[in-house]
Protein backbone atom coordinates (compact mmCIF):
# COMPACT_ATOMS: atom_id res chain seq x y z
CA UNK A 1 0.00 0.00 0.00
CA UNK A 2 1.90 2.98 -1.25
CA UNK A 3 1.23 6.45 -0.04
CA UNK A 4 0.08 8.34 -3.05
CA UNK A 5 0.53 11.92 -2.16
CA UNK A 6 2.90 12.54 -5.00
CA UNK A 7 0.37 11.38 -7.52
CA UNK A 8 -1.36 14.73 -7.58
CA UNK A 9 1.80 16.63 -7.06
CA UNK A 10 0.58 18.19 -3.87
CA UNK A 11 3.24 17.06 -1.51
CA UNK A 12 5.44 19.97 -2.44
CA UNK A 13 2.70 22.46 -1.99
CA UNK A 14 2.10 22.17 1.64
CA UNK A 15 4.20 21.80 4.66
CA UNK A 16 4.64 18.34 5.99
CA UNK A 17 3.66 18.49 9.58
CA UNK A 18 6.30 16.96 11.84
CA UNK A 19 5.70 13.24 11.89
CA UNK A 20 3.57 13.45 8.80
CA UNK A 21 3.88 10.30 6.81
CA UNK A 22 6.18 10.39 3.83
CA UNK A 23 6.22 7.88 1.05
CA UNK A 24 7.26 4.48 2.18
CA UNK A 25 6.61 0.82 1.96
CA UNK A 26 3.01 0.34 2.94
CA UNK A 27 3.80 -2.85 4.78
CA UNK A 28 5.95 -0.91 7.17
CA UNK A 29 3.58 1.97 7.63
CA UNK A 30 1.42 0.89 10.45
CA UNK A 31 0.44 4.10 12.13
CA UNK A 32 -2.22 6.49 10.97
CA UNK A 33 -0.50 9.68 12.07
CA UNK A 34 -0.13 10.88 8.52
CA UNK A 35 -3.77 10.43 7.61
CA UNK A 36 -6.32 13.12 8.01
CA UNK A 37 -9.05 10.86 9.26
CA UNK A 38 -10.52 7.59 8.07
CA UNK A 39 -11.76 9.05 4.78
CA UNK A 40 -8.24 10.10 3.91
CA UNK A 41 -7.01 6.62 4.78
CA UNK A 42 -9.73 5.07 2.64
CA UNK A 43 -8.80 7.36 -0.23
CA UNK A 44 -5.18 6.32 0.03
CA UNK A 45 -6.17 2.68 0.07
CA UNK A 46 -8.50 3.23 -2.87
CA UNK A 47 -5.65 4.64 -4.89
CA UNK A 48 -3.85 1.35 -4.56
CA UNK A 49 -6.59 -0.22 -6.63
CA UNK A 50 -5.26 1.96 -9.45
CA UNK A 51 -8.63 2.33 -11.03
CA UNK A 52 -11.01 5.17 -11.57
CA UNK A 53 -12.64 5.95 -8.27
CA UNK A 54 -15.99 5.67 -10.02
CA UNK A 55 -15.28 2.02 -10.78
CA UNK A 56 -13.72 1.14 -7.50
CA UNK A 57 -14.77 -1.97 -5.66
CA UNK A 58 -16.11 -0.68 -2.40
CA UNK A 59 -16.24 -4.23 -1.07
CA UNK A 60 -12.55 -4.73 -1.75
CA UNK A 61 -11.80 -1.33 -0.26
CA UNK A 62 -13.76 -2.17 2.88
CA UNK A 63 -11.81 -5.40 3.24
CA UNK A 64 -8.52 -3.55 2.80
CA UNK A 65 -9.44 -1.02 5.41
CA UNK A 66 -10.58 -3.67 7.88
CA UNK A 67 -7.42 -5.70 7.52
CA UNK A 68 -5.32 -2.57 7.84
CA UNK A 69 -7.06 -1.65 11.06
CA UNK A 70 -6.77 -5.25 12.23
CA UNK A 71 -3.02 -5.08 11.67
CA UNK A 72 -2.76 -1.89 13.70
CA UNK A 73 -4.74 -3.43 16.54
CA UNK A 74 -2.58 -6.54 16.46
CA UNK A 75 0.38 -4.24 17.10
CA UNK A 76 -1.61 -2.81 20.04
CA UNK A 77 -1.49 0.70 18.63
CA UNK A 78 -3.90 3.22 19.95
CA UNK A 79 -6.42 4.16 17.32
CA UNK A 80 -8.54 7.27 17.20
CA UNK A 81 -12.22 6.54 17.70
CA UNK A 82 -13.28 7.74 14.27
CA UNK A 83 -11.08 5.11 12.59
CA UNK A 84 -12.86 2.46 14.64
CA UNK A 85 -16.26 3.90 13.86
CA UNK A 86 -15.41 3.75 10.18
CA UNK A 87 -14.24 0.16 10.61
CA UNK A 88 -17.53 -0.81 12.23
CA UNK A 89 -19.49 0.95 9.50
CA UNK A 90 -17.46 -0.76 6.77
CA UNK A 91 -17.95 -4.15 8.44
CA UNK A 92 -21.68 -3.50 8.38
CA UNK A 93 -21.47 -2.34 4.74
CA UNK A 94 -19.58 -5.48 3.87
CA UNK A 95 -22.26 -7.66 5.43
CA UNK A 96 -24.98 -5.72 3.60
CA UNK A 97 -23.15 -6.16 0.31
CA UNK A 98 -22.63 -9.87 0.82
CA UNK A 99 -25.98 -10.80 2.33
CA UNK A 100 -29.32 -10.27 0.67
CA UNK A 101 -31.18 -7.36 2.18
CA UNK A 102 -33.95 -8.58 4.52
CA UNK A 103 -36.25 -5.65 4.02
CA UNK A 104 -35.29 -3.67 0.98
CA UNK A 105 -37.62 -0.73 1.56
CA UNK A 106 -36.71 0.12 5.10
CA UNK A 107 -33.13 1.34 4.80
CA UNK A 108 -30.58 2.02 2.11
CA UNK A 109 -29.33 -1.08 0.39
CA UNK A 110 -25.71 -2.15 0.54
CA UNK A 111 -25.28 -0.84 -3.00
CA UNK A 112 -26.68 2.56 -2.07
CA UNK A 113 -24.40 2.75 0.96
CA UNK A 114 -21.43 1.78 -1.20
CA UNK A 115 -22.40 4.40 -3.78
CA UNK A 116 -22.58 7.01 -1.05
CA UNK A 117 -19.11 6.14 0.19
CA UNK A 118 -17.76 6.14 -3.36
CA UNK A 119 -19.26 9.57 -3.86
CA UNK A 120 -17.65 10.88 -0.72
CA UNK A 121 -14.27 9.55 -1.81
CA UNK A 122 -14.63 11.05 -5.25
CA UNK A 123 -15.71 14.35 -3.80
CA UNK A 124 -12.78 14.48 -1.40
CA UNK A 125 -10.42 13.59 -4.22
CA UNK A 126 -11.99 16.25 -6.41
CA UNK A 127 -11.51 18.86 -3.71
CA UNK A 128 -7.88 17.82 -3.31
CA UNK A 129 -7.33 18.25 -7.01
CA UNK A 130 -9.14 21.55 -6.98
CA UNK A 131 -6.96 22.72 -4.09
CA UNK A 132 -3.86 21.74 -6.04
CA UNK A 133 -5.03 23.63 -9.11
CA UNK A 134 -5.93 26.61 -7.02
CA UNK A 135 -2.63 26.75 -5.21
CA UNK A 136 -0.75 26.30 -8.47
CA UNK A 137 -2.28 29.38 -10.01
CA UNK A 138 -0.18 32.48 -10.39
CA UNK A 139 -0.73 33.95 -7.01
CA UNK A 140 -0.41 37.61 -6.26
CA UNK A 141 2.66 38.22 -4.19
CA UNK A 142 4.16 34.81 -5.10
CA UNK A 143 4.32 34.53 -8.85
CA UNK A 144 2.90 37.83 -9.92
CA UNK A 145 3.24 41.17 -8.24
CA UNK A 146 1.25 44.29 -7.83
CA UNK A 147 2.70 47.77 -7.86
CA UNK A 148 5.48 47.80 -5.33
CA UNK A 149 5.08 51.47 -4.57
CA UNK A 150 1.43 52.10 -4.95
CA UNK A 151 0.75 55.77 -5.36
CA UNK A 152 -2.15 56.05 -3.05
CA UNK A 153 -4.76 58.23 -4.50
CA UNK A 154 -3.99 61.36 -2.62
CA UNK A 155 -6.63 62.37 -0.22
CA UNK A 156 -6.96 66.10 -0.31
CA UNK A 157 -8.58 67.32 2.82
CA UNK A 158 -10.53 70.06 1.22
CA UNK A 159 -13.26 71.60 3.24
CA UNK A 160 -15.92 72.00 0.70
CA UNK A 161 -18.33 74.41 2.19
CA UNK A 162 -21.65 74.45 0.55
CA UNK A 163 -23.42 77.74 0.28
CA UNK A 164 -25.50 79.19 -2.48
CA UNK A 165 -25.78 82.77 -3.54
CA UNK A 166 -29.27 82.72 -2.10
CA UNK A 167 -27.90 81.60 1.26
CA UNK A 168 -25.44 84.43 1.09
CA UNK A 169 -27.94 87.13 0.21
CA UNK A 170 -30.43 85.78 2.71
CA UNK A 171 -27.78 85.96 5.41
CA UNK A 172 -26.83 89.48 4.47
CA UNK A 173 -30.34 90.81 4.19
CA UNK A 174 -31.63 89.29 7.37
CA UNK A 175 -28.53 90.32 9.23
CA UNK A 176 -28.80 93.89 8.08
CA UNK A 177 -32.50 93.89 8.79
CA UNK A 178 -31.87 92.74 12.35
CA UNK A 179 -29.34 95.48 12.82
CA UNK A 180 -31.80 98.19 11.70
CA UNK A 181 -33.19 98.08 15.21
CA UNK A 182 -29.94 99.21 16.73
CA UNK A 183 -29.51 101.79 13.99
CA UNK A 184 -32.73 103.37 15.26
CA UNK A 185 -31.27 103.27 18.74
CA UNK A 186 -28.35 105.37 17.68
CA UNK A 187 -30.67 107.95 16.13
CA UNK A 188 -32.79 108.15 19.25
CA UNK A 189 -29.75 109.14 21.24
CA UNK A 190 -29.41 112.09 18.86
CA UNK A 191 -32.74 113.51 19.98
CA UNK A 192 -32.18 116.79 21.86
CA UNK A 193 -33.89 116.61 25.16
CA UNK A 194 -35.67 119.63 26.66
CA UNK A 195 -33.19 119.69 29.51
CA UNK A 196 -30.34 119.79 27.06
CA UNK A 197 -31.95 122.60 25.10
CA UNK A 198 -32.69 124.58 28.21
CA UNK A 199 -29.18 124.25 29.52
CA UNK A 200 -27.65 125.31 26.24
CA UNK A 201 -30.04 128.23 25.78
CA UNK A 202 -29.50 129.49 29.32
CA UNK A 203 -25.78 129.40 28.89
CA UNK A 204 -25.84 131.05 25.44
CA UNK A 205 -28.35 133.77 26.15
CA UNK A 206 -26.29 135.04 29.06
CA UNK A 207 -23.37 135.73 26.76
CA UNK A 208 -25.06 137.77 24.04
CA UNK A 209 -26.03 141.35 24.00
CA UNK A 210 -28.98 141.91 21.72
CA UNK A 211 -31.74 140.23 19.77
CA UNK A 212 -30.14 137.24 18.15
CA UNK A 213 -31.70 134.60 15.87
CA UNK A 214 -32.19 131.39 17.81
CA UNK A 215 -30.63 129.52 14.86
CA UNK A 216 -27.33 131.14 15.68
CA UNK A 217 -27.39 129.73 19.19
CA UNK A 218 -28.30 126.33 17.88
CA UNK A 219 -25.99 126.06 14.89
CA UNK A 220 -23.17 124.30 16.76
CA UNK A 221 -25.65 121.49 17.69
CA UNK A 222 -27.18 121.03 14.28
CA UNK A 223 -24.46 118.70 13.02
CA UNK A 224 -26.56 116.82 10.55
CA UNK A 225 -29.76 117.77 8.73
CA UNK A 226 -31.56 115.10 10.72
CA UNK A 227 -30.64 116.87 13.95
CA UNK A 228 -32.25 120.13 12.91
CA UNK A 229 -35.82 119.13 13.68
CA UNK A 230 -35.15 117.82 17.14
CA UNK A 231 -32.86 120.72 18.08
CA UNK A 232 -35.28 123.33 16.85
CA UNK A 233 -38.27 121.66 18.47
CA UNK A 234 -36.61 121.15 21.82
CA UNK A 235 -35.05 124.57 21.95
CA UNK A 236 -38.34 126.22 21.02
CA UNK A 237 -40.07 124.40 23.85
CA UNK A 238 -37.25 125.26 26.21
CA UNK A 239 -37.25 128.89 25.15
CA UNK A 240 -41.01 129.19 25.78
CA UNK A 241 -40.43 127.87 29.24
CA UNK A 242 -37.63 130.38 29.83
CA UNK A 243 -39.96 133.19 28.66
CA UNK A 244 -42.63 132.04 31.07
CA UNK A 245 -40.04 132.11 33.84
CA UNK A 246 -39.14 135.65 32.76
CA UNK A 247 -35.56 134.80 31.92
CA UNK A 248 -35.62 135.57 28.14
CA UNK A 249 -37.67 137.44 25.57
CA UNK A 250 -38.72 136.15 22.15
CA UNK A 251 -39.62 138.09 19.07
CA UNK A 252 -40.86 137.02 15.66
CA UNK A 253 -41.69 139.53 12.95
CA UNK A 254 -43.82 137.27 10.74
CA UNK A 255 -45.09 133.65 10.68
CA UNK A 256 -42.18 131.22 9.90
CA UNK A 257 -39.74 134.08 10.12
CA UNK A 258 -36.61 133.77 12.19
CA UNK A 259 -37.12 133.65 15.92
CA UNK A 260 -35.12 136.19 17.89
CA UNK A 261 -34.17 135.90 21.51
CA UNK A 262 -32.51 138.08 24.10
CA UNK A 263 -31.70 138.02 27.77
CA UNK A 264 -34.56 139.42 29.84
CA UNK A 265 -32.31 140.88 32.52
CA UNK A 266 -30.13 142.69 30.04
CA UNK A 267 -33.24 143.83 28.20
CA UNK A 268 -34.72 145.07 31.42
CA UNK A 269 -31.70 147.27 31.89
CA UNK A 270 -31.92 148.59 28.38
CA UNK A 271 -35.65 149.15 28.73
CA UNK A 272 -34.90 151.29 31.72
CA UNK A 273 -32.40 153.13 29.58
CA UNK A 274 -34.92 153.50 26.78
CA UNK A 275 -37.63 154.41 29.08
Amino acid at each position, binding site marked *: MAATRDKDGQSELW*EMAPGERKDGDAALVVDVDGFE*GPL*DLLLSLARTQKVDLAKISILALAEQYLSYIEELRRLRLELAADYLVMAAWLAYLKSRLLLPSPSPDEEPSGEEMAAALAFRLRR*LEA*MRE*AAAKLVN*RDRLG*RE*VFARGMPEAVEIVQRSDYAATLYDLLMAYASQRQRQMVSVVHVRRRQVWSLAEAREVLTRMVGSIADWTPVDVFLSPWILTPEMRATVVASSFSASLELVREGRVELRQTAPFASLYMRDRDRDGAETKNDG
Partner: protein
Amino acid sequence: MVDRDNLTLLAPEGHRMALRIVEAMLFASAHPLGAKEIAARLPEGSDVDALIREIEHLYSGRGVNLVKVAGKYMFRTASDLAFLLQRDSGEQKKLSRAALETLAIIAYHQPVTRAEIEEIRGVSISKGTLDVLMEAGWIKMRGRRRTPGRPVTYGTTENFLVHFGLEMIGDLPGLEELKGAGLLDGRIPPGFSVPEPRDGDALRDDEDPLDPDDLLAAGLSEHD
Protein backbone atom coordinates in the same frame (compact mmCIF):
# COMPACT_ATOMS: atom_id res chain seq x y z
CA MET B 1 1.58 45.04 -33.70
CA VAL B 2 2.66 48.56 -34.45
CA ASP B 3 -0.85 49.71 -35.09
CA ARG B 4 -2.00 49.14 -31.58
CA ASP B 5 0.62 51.50 -30.29
CA ASN B 6 -0.32 54.04 -32.86
CA LEU B 7 -3.77 54.06 -31.40
CA THR B 8 -2.37 55.95 -28.46
CA LEU B 9 0.02 58.08 -30.36
CA LEU B 10 -2.15 59.17 -33.23
CA ALA B 11 -5.50 59.39 -31.56
CA PRO B 12 -6.95 62.81 -30.95
CA GLU B 13 -5.61 64.65 -27.94
CA GLY B 14 -8.68 63.95 -25.82
CA HIS B 15 -8.52 60.25 -26.39
CA ARG B 16 -4.83 60.18 -25.64
CA MET B 17 -5.38 62.09 -22.44
CA ALA B 18 -8.12 59.69 -21.39
CA LEU B 19 -5.80 56.75 -22.07
CA ARG B 20 -3.04 58.34 -20.04
CA ILE B 21 -5.43 58.94 -17.18
CA VAL B 22 -6.66 55.35 -17.13
CA GLU B 23 -3.10 54.12 -17.40
CA ALA B 24 -1.95 56.31 -14.53
CA MET B 25 -4.85 55.37 -12.29
CA LEU B 26 -4.43 51.65 -12.84
CA PHE B 27 -0.70 51.87 -12.56
CA ALA B 28 -0.73 53.86 -9.37
CA SER B 29 -3.06 51.56 -7.54
CA ALA B 30 -2.02 48.38 -5.78
CA HIS B 31 -5.66 47.34 -5.74
CA PRO B 32 -7.90 46.44 -8.61
CA LEU B 33 -10.05 49.30 -9.84
CA GLY B 34 -13.55 48.91 -11.21
CA ALA B 35 -14.66 50.50 -14.45
CA LYS B 36 -16.91 52.79 -12.45
CA GLU B 37 -14.07 54.06 -10.27
CA ILE B 38 -12.07 54.77 -13.37
CA ALA B 39 -14.96 56.43 -15.14
CA ALA B 40 -15.41 58.80 -12.21
CA ARG B 41 -12.11 60.48 -13.14
CA LEU B 42 -12.78 60.67 -16.83
CA PRO B 43 -14.75 63.20 -18.84
CA GLU B 44 -18.37 62.24 -19.05
CA GLY B 45 -19.20 60.00 -21.97
CA SER B 46 -15.76 58.37 -22.13
CA ASP B 47 -15.85 54.78 -23.30
CA VAL B 48 -14.09 53.29 -20.30
CA ASP B 49 -14.32 49.71 -21.51
CA ALA B 50 -12.73 50.58 -24.84
CA LEU B 51 -9.96 52.50 -23.11
CA ILE B 52 -9.27 49.58 -20.79
CA ARG B 53 -9.20 47.15 -23.70
CA GLU B 54 -6.76 49.39 -25.49
CA ILE B 55 -4.44 49.47 -22.50
CA GLU B 56 -4.84 45.74 -22.00
CA HIS B 57 -3.75 45.26 -25.57
CA LEU B 58 -0.94 47.77 -25.31
CA TYR B 59 0.56 45.95 -22.34
CA SER B 60 0.04 42.40 -23.52
CA GLY B 61 3.42 40.82 -24.00
CA ARG B 62 5.04 43.41 -21.77
CA GLY B 63 6.73 42.83 -18.43
CA VAL B 64 3.64 44.24 -16.81
CA ASN B 65 0.14 43.17 -17.88
CA LEU B 66 -3.32 44.45 -17.27
CA VAL B 67 -5.53 41.71 -15.83
CA LYS B 68 -9.10 41.50 -14.70
CA VAL B 69 -9.61 40.12 -11.22
CA ALA B 70 -12.77 40.09 -9.16
CA GLY B 71 -14.43 42.02 -11.95
CA LYS B 72 -11.88 44.82 -11.62
CA TYR B 73 -8.66 45.75 -13.36
CA MET B 74 -5.10 45.86 -12.13
CA PHE B 75 -1.59 45.88 -13.47
CA ARG B 76 0.49 42.86 -12.46
CA THR B 77 3.87 41.61 -13.45
CA ALA B 78 3.75 39.07 -16.27
CA SER B 79 3.37 35.59 -14.85
CA ASP B 80 6.17 34.14 -16.94
CA LEU B 81 8.60 36.40 -15.09
CA ALA B 82 7.69 34.88 -11.75
CA PHE B 83 10.99 33.05 -11.44
CA LEU B 84 12.86 36.34 -11.64
CA LEU B 85 10.79 38.27 -9.21
CA GLN B 86 10.16 35.71 -6.53
CA ARG B 87 13.33 36.58 -4.75
CA ASP B 88 11.77 39.93 -3.99
CA SER B 89 8.94 38.56 -1.98
CA GLY B 90 9.52 37.77 1.62
CA GLU B 91 9.46 34.16 2.72
CA GLN B 92 5.83 33.27 2.24
CA LYS B 93 4.33 30.85 4.68
CA LYS B 94 3.03 27.74 3.05
CA LEU B 95 -0.55 26.84 3.71
CA SER B 96 -1.07 23.63 5.63
CA ARG B 97 -2.75 20.89 3.68
CA ALA B 98 -5.77 21.13 5.95
CA ALA B 99 -6.04 24.89 5.34
CA LEU B 100 -5.65 24.52 1.61
CA GLU B 101 -8.31 21.80 1.39
CA THR B 102 -10.62 23.78 3.60
CA LEU B 103 -10.11 26.85 1.41
CA ALA B 104 -10.90 24.85 -1.71
CA ILE B 105 -14.02 23.37 -0.14
CA ILE B 106 -15.21 26.81 0.93
CA ALA B 107 -14.47 28.24 -2.53
CA TYR B 108 -16.29 25.53 -4.44
CA HIS B 109 -19.12 24.82 -2.02
CA GLN B 110 -19.87 28.25 -0.62
CA PRO B 111 -21.88 29.15 1.29
CA VAL B 112 -20.80 26.25 3.46
CA THR B 113 -20.88 25.52 7.17
CA ARG B 114 -18.10 24.09 9.22
CA ALA B 115 -20.00 20.81 9.62
CA GLU B 116 -20.32 20.54 5.85
CA ILE B 117 -16.60 21.14 5.39
CA GLU B 118 -15.91 18.44 7.95
CA GLU B 119 -18.30 16.09 6.22
CA ILE B 120 -16.48 16.52 2.93
CA ARG B 121 -13.03 16.14 4.45
CA GLY B 122 -14.15 13.29 6.73
CA VAL B 123 -12.34 14.88 9.64
CA SER B 124 -12.98 17.71 12.03
CA ILE B 125 -11.25 20.99 11.32
CA SER B 126 -9.50 22.92 14.00
CA LYS B 127 -10.49 26.46 14.80
CA GLY B 128 -6.99 27.48 13.81
CA THR B 129 -7.51 26.38 10.22
CA LEU B 130 -10.41 28.74 9.67
CA ASP B 131 -8.55 31.47 11.54
CA VAL B 132 -5.58 31.20 9.21
CA LEU B 133 -7.85 31.60 6.21
CA MET B 134 -9.71 34.49 7.80
CA GLU B 135 -6.44 36.16 8.65
CA ALA B 136 -5.22 35.78 5.09
CA GLY B 137 -8.36 37.66 4.11
CA TRP B 138 -9.53 34.90 1.82
CA ILE B 139 -12.66 33.75 3.61
CA LYS B 140 -15.34 35.47 5.58
CA MET B 141 -18.34 34.59 7.62
CA ARG B 142 -21.34 35.18 5.41
CA GLY B 143 -24.38 34.46 7.54
CA ARG B 144 -26.06 31.72 9.46
CA ARG B 145 -27.72 28.67 7.94
CA ARG B 146 -31.39 28.51 8.73
CA THR B 147 -31.15 25.05 10.30
CA PRO B 148 -31.10 23.89 13.91
CA GLY B 149 -28.13 25.38 15.68
CA ARG B 150 -27.99 28.19 13.09
CA PRO B 151 -24.40 27.37 12.04
CA VAL B 152 -22.28 30.12 10.51
CA THR B 153 -21.83 29.91 6.75
CA TYR B 154 -18.48 30.73 5.16
CA GLY B 155 -17.64 32.12 1.75
CA THR B 156 -14.67 33.59 -0.07
CA THR B 157 -13.78 37.26 -0.32
CA GLU B 158 -12.85 39.57 -3.14
CA ASN B 159 -9.33 39.32 -1.81
CA PHE B 160 -9.42 35.61 -2.55
CA LEU B 161 -10.21 36.32 -6.18
CA VAL B 162 -7.46 38.93 -6.37
CA HIS B 163 -4.86 36.70 -4.77
CA PHE B 164 -5.60 33.73 -7.00
CA GLY B 165 -6.06 35.88 -10.08
CA LEU B 166 -9.68 34.94 -10.69
CA GLU B 167 -11.98 37.25 -12.55
CA MET B 168 -14.98 35.82 -10.73
CA ILE B 169 -15.84 32.82 -8.62
CA GLY B 170 -17.19 31.07 -11.72
CA ASP B 171 -13.62 30.95 -13.03
CA LEU B 172 -12.48 28.49 -10.38
CA PRO B 173 -10.42 25.82 -12.10
CA GLY B 174 -12.28 22.65 -13.04
CA LEU B 175 -15.57 24.06 -11.87
CA GLU B 176 -17.54 22.85 -14.86
CA GLU B 177 -16.32 19.27 -14.59
CA LEU B 178 -17.03 19.18 -10.88
CA LYS B 179 -20.49 20.51 -11.48
CA GLY B 180 -21.08 17.99 -14.25
CA ALA B 181 -20.00 15.14 -11.98
CA GLY B 182 -22.36 16.35 -9.27
CA LEU B 183 -19.42 16.66 -6.91
CA LEU B 184 -20.44 20.06 -5.67
CA ASP B 185 -23.67 18.64 -4.38
CA GLY B 186 -23.73 18.35 -0.65
CA ARG B 187 -26.23 15.55 -0.59
CA ILE B 188 -25.48 11.90 -1.08
CA PRO B 189 -26.27 10.54 -3.56
CA PRO B 190 -26.16 13.55 -5.84
CA GLY B 191 -29.52 14.98 -6.65
CA PHE B 192 -30.64 16.66 -9.82
CA SER B 193 -29.91 20.20 -8.83
CA VAL B 194 -26.30 21.17 -9.24
CA PRO B 195 -25.31 23.90 -6.85
CA GLU B 196 -22.81 26.49 -7.92
CA PRO B 197 -20.44 28.32 -5.66
CA ARG B 198 -21.57 31.84 -5.16
CA ASP B 199 -19.62 34.47 -3.33
CA GLY B 200 -22.09 37.28 -3.79
CA ASP B 201 -22.91 39.08 -0.62
CA ALA B 202 -26.60 38.42 -1.01
CA LEU B 203 -27.69 35.73 1.40
CA ARG B 204 -29.31 32.58 0.11
CA ASP B 205 -32.80 31.55 1.01
CA ASP B 206 -31.47 29.31 3.74
CA GLU B 207 -29.09 31.91 5.15
CA ASP B 208 -29.79 34.46 7.84
CA PRO B 209 -27.62 37.50 8.41
CA LEU B 210 -24.83 37.18 10.95
CA ASP B 211 -25.58 38.14 14.52
CA PRO B 212 -23.87 41.32 15.69
CA ASP B 213 -21.85 39.18 18.08
CA ASP B 214 -20.43 37.18 15.20
CA LEU B 215 -18.86 40.24 13.69
CA LEU B 216 -17.50 41.23 17.05
CA ALA B 217 -16.06 37.78 17.60
CA ALA B 218 -14.53 37.77 14.16
CA GLY B 219 -12.72 40.92 15.20
CA LEU B 220 -9.67 41.73 13.18
CA SER B 221 -9.71 38.45 11.36
CA GLU B 222 -12.76 39.61 9.45
CA HIS B 223 -11.05 41.13 6.47
CA ASP B 224 -13.82 41.67 4.10
